[in-house]
């Protein structure tokens, strides 16, 4: 009997968030294939946009997929390749990063990047007062990073909080550590740090502790919802009191919805935007997945 | 004083040329000229400045002071071999070939034949073939340089230079690595060029060759012009004497009788390699054993195989009666057997390093104390080597490349002798070495043998083989074809064995 083939394409995990996504994707594959023997999910990951475009070609020409779940490396370069998949007749589900041309995808599942920046800034404003100083450690220079950063700055604007400087720490612990070390040498008075991402935050915390500047109400806001961070929020850590959710499990959601498109009798096409929830000690437990690598 | 210069006939001339490297002067107001249709030989001790003068005359070096005249006109020669466009071609003392490229590609490098803008490979190969045929050489134009023996490479250099139809052909020791047979082939071409009006400069330490081919001879000593005279006015002895500045008596050392019953220190039985077939011979303690043969007869390969520098394909080697299958040159060295290569530039010395690291490289384990290099001992070794082999470096800190060719050769000899071997194999021991030092080296070899060391001399210089060896083995085509002992060693016999006119079952 002919199987329903669903290709799942996403970037090769090079940092923990992506690894978490990969973990959730694999779990979902196991679960869905067990549930529906006639569904075959094919997971491929690619190290760069060109390779992902190639992988999409291969999914069509070799596997002849019926549906595609894709987390594009970047929006622009993958718009056309995804369009080509669509032309082969496959159902398209886009995850996280929208394509640059509307109307290609049948289903859209995403987190909310500007909201992540905004929620972080709102929290900063709630803890800091006029004239306080913060530094910002950004991710890899990409659209996502820009969206988060711009929304953050827009929200901070007019609050009287000074953003002393912002540097790219590339969603990487080592870079977070080194950039923070240098910020600490450079600015004698820092009241809080927006690290944007939990990996960077880990490096920032290490640098703060090394310099002995982790007291006096200093705090760091990361993002994404790494399990270690959530655990320490649950334990009431002062230095990293909150986190802003950007769930890697969204890929599983997308796979569920896509399979549902073949299996459900209800309509599934549409947009599913997941919130950028502020994780606090009160709600942390519900975002804690101890088995995930992230 | 420069009465021999007559500007109206000389094609190329140096006038009161001086040259210093940094602050070291090596030529002092030297004048030199070449006329069309003559062979002008330049001789002198190692480091006298011959190569320097030749490079100046062909534009590879600039003068510090003095003038160069081409056809009587003062000229400043363009650098880097571009003087070729003016008809001046230099064969460097050291090989200058691109190893990975083929013979034909090298011969035409820089002036490829083209057709409609594309390289005409077949035509170049055809012409190269024709030139080799005219020479009487069998080298394939499509062979890669790296696969040729050093003598073949030298012939390629010569053919390359001759093919350029130069007006002035300057040759810096072209015959140093050639056997007499090849030298004859070469001289035939030289005479032909001379007849065609080419002006030729010939540098050599083989004085009999100078006597044979040159019309005029200029002698340099320590960078000073000594004399320029017609070749008839010299005898071999007077040439040597004027070069060295002293009388050279007892050129070859007195030969002590070889002890035919001395123990056998090295023996091979039915040794085979890629090009060698069933080589068997014996070397006795205190013996000087010569190996003669033509280009590619396999002498080098034989001893490289024994020292594990080349692959062996069967056969047995014994050193002092014990099986000796060395797995590395280091094992051979530690067993007291060393090989001195004739290819000093590619295999012998680190040209970019100083003299000291080169001197001790081969025997380096000897120079360690508590795991550290003993630099004082290295320095002592260098000083010893310089004294023993009369290495003349104006600047002891100079890099090896800056030494004159002959002094490099001496350094190589000193390097190998640092290992204090019991058996030493010297491939072309006096390649590029002046007569004075040659004499010293011959006496040195004789002294080694007298002390009970065994010496193998691979040489293309017949007089040398005859002058210092107790016994001579002749090789041809990868086999030993003859053996000569004592008074039976003479040029005639060697040539007959080497050329295949005579053959006996060698019994070593």
């Amino acid at each position: 009997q002919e199987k329903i083939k669903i290709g799942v394409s996403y970037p090769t995990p090079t940092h923990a968030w992506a690894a978490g996504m990969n973990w959730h994707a694999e779990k979902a594959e196991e679960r869905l294939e067990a549930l529906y023997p006639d569904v075959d999910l094919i997971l491929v990951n690619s190290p760069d946009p060109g390779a992902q475009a190639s992988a999409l070609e291969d999914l069509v020409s070799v596997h002849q997929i019926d549906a595609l779940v894709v987390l594009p490396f970047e929006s622009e370069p993958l718009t056309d390749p995804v369009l080509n998949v669509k032309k082969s007749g496959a159902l398209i589900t886009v995850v996280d990063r929208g394509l640059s041309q509307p109307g290609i995808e049948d289903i859209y599942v995403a987190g909310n990047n500007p909201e992540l920046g905004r929620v972080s800034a709102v929290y900063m404003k709630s803890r800091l007062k006029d004239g306080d100083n913060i530094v910002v450690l950004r991710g890899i220079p990409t659209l996502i990073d820009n969206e988060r950063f711009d929304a953050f700055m827009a929200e901070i604007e007019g609050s009287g909080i000074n953003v002393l400087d912002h540097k790219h720490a590339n969603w990487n612990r080592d870079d977070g550590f080194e950039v923070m070390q240098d910020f600490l040498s450079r600015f004698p008075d820092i009241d809080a740090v927006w690290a944007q991402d939990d990996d960077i935050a880990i490096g920032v915390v290490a640098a703060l502790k090394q310099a002995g500047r982790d007291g006096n109400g200093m705090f760091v806001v990361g993002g994404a919802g790494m399990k270690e961070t959530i655990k320490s929020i649950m334990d009431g850590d002062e230095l990293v009191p909150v986190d802003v959710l950007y769930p890697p499990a969204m890929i599983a959601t997308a796979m569920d919805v896509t399979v549902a498109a073949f299996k459900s009798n209800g309509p599934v096409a549409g947009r599913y935007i997941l919130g950028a929830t502020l994780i606090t000690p009160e709600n942390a437990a519900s975002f804690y997945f101890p088995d995930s690598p992230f | 004083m420069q009465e021999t210069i007559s500007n109206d006939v000389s094609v190329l001339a140096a006038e009161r040329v001086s040259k210093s490297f940094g602050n070291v002067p090596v030529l002092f107001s030297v004048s030199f000229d070449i006329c069309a249709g003559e062979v002008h030989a330049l001789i002198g001790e190692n480091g006298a400045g011959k190569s320097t003068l030749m490079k100046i005359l062909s534009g590879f070096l600039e003068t510090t002071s003095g003038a160069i005249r081409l056809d009587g006109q003062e000229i400043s020669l363009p650098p880097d071999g571009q003087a070729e466009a003016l008809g001046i071609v230099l064969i460097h003392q050291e090989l200058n070939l691109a190893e990975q490229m083929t013979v034909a590609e090298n011969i035409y490098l820089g002036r490829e034949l083209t057709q409609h803008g594309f390289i005409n490979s077949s035509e170049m190969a055809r012409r190269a073939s024709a030139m080799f045929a005219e020479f009487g050489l069998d080298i394939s134009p499509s062979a890669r340089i790296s696969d040729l023996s050093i003598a073949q490479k030298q012939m390629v250099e010569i053919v390359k230079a001759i093919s350029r139809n130069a007006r002035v052909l300057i040759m810096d020791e072209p015959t140093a690595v050639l056997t007499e047979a090849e030298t004859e082939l070469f001289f035939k071409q030289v005479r032909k060029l001379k007849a065609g009006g080419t002006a030729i400069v010939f540098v050599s330490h083989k004085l009999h060759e100078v006597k044979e081919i040159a019309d005029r001879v200029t002698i340099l000593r320590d960078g000073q012009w000594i004399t320029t005279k017609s070749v008839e006015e010299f005898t071999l002895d007077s040439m040597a004497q004027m070069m060295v500045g002293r009388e050279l008596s007892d050129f070859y050392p007195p030969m002590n009788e070889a002890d035919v019953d001395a123990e056998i220190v090295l023996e091979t039985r039915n040794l085979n390699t890629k090009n060698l077939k069933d080589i068997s011979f014996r070397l006795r303690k205190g013996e000087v054993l010569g190996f003669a043969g033509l280009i590619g007869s396999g002498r080098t390969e034989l001893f490289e195989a024994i020292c594990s520098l080349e692959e062996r394909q069967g056969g047995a080697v014994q050193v002092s009666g014990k099986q000796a299958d060395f797995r590395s040159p280091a094992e051979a060295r530690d067993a007291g057997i060393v090989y001195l290569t004739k290819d000093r530039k590619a295999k012998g010395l680190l040209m970019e390093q100083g003299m000291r690291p080169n001197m001790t490289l081969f025997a380096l384990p000897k120079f360690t104390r508590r795991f550290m290099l003993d630099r004082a001992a290295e320095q002592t070794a260098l000083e010893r080597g310089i004294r023993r082999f009369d290495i003349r470096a104006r600047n002891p800190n100079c890099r090896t490349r800056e030494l004159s060719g002959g002094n490099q050769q001496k350094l190589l000899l000193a390097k190998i002798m640092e290992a204090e071997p019991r058996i030493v194999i010297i491939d072309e021991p006096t390649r590029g070495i002046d007569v004075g030092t040659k004499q010293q080296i011959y006496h040195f070899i004789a002294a080694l043998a007298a002390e009970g060391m065994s010496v193998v001399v691979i040489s293309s210089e017949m007089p040398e083989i005859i002058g210092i060896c107790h016994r001579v083995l002749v090789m041809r085509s990868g086999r030993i074809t003859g053996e000569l002992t004592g008074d039976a060693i003479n040029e005639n016999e060697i040539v007959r064995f080497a050329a295949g006119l005579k053959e006996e079952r060698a019994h070593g």
Partner: protein
Amino acid sequence: MADIMTNQVTGARTTTMDFKTYGPAVALLLLCVIGFMLNPAFLSEGNITNLLTRSAFIGIIAVGATFVITAGGIDLSVGSMAAVIAGVMIIVMNNSIDTFGTGATTVLIGCGFSILLGLGAGWINGMLTTKGKIEAFIVTLGTMGIFRSLVTYFADGGTLSLNHDVRGTYRPVYYDSILGLPFPVWVFIAVSVAGWILLNRTTFGRYCTAIGSNEAVAKYSAIKVDRIKTWTYVLQGLCVAMATIIYVPRLGSASSSTGVLWELEAIAAVIIGGTVLKGGYGRIGGTIIGALILTTIGNILNFTDVISNYLNGTMQGLIIIVAVLLQRSDWSRRASPKN
């Protein structure tokens, strides 16, 4: 006598050369067999076409790299150069729309800019290496960083996108076929043939080989070493520009992640193909097979989920090493002494 010797030498040489020549081809064939066994769709026309088209980018760049490497140099900047050229091309085309519309003129202006930039970037690499006398590795490591950060700057950290209508005009350059072969494959073939002729049949190629083989000898043969070396980098730049011209219509965008690691892929293709990294021996044919091998490895890994995704890199590494092991013969022994 000498006759026998010479013949023996020549004979031995031919066999080794053959193995050397066919080694990469054998490796590629083996890969194809493996691919077919894993999934017969591997040999489908669609997949073969995809594979060839994909190889075109790296292949064209690698043809340029063959010259640089043959002449004893190296260029680590090609990936970033491609990115910055793509970026500037897109900016230029988007800005030309007002004046020239969204038609072929705009695309041609973009392509012209691409070529100019490629030549210019190559010339800078070449001059810094020859006149500046800095080692090529350092020069191109430097320009690699510079180009990469310039494209990030131009794109403001994001992605530069080609105007939608211009893309429509430009699209066929990547997606259309002539006589059943996609256009990029034709460009690849043309560049390969031109490269082969240039390397093997012109004095320029001969000089590259001579310089890589022994710079002093080349210099003494009155070859203008610096000029030829500079030209190899300029040629490399030109190849990068051509690869970019067919790359841009594929994805219609450029960002700081465009062309990452292409330099290593290009160099790997060249060396897998049998060119000697230290210079002095280059093979365009081998380079092309090398590029095909690399793309095929990626393609095959997309074909199977037998292997954990995370181990793709392991497979790639192993295959590259084995492919070279296949053709190692005794070449390296011969080539290694720098003499």
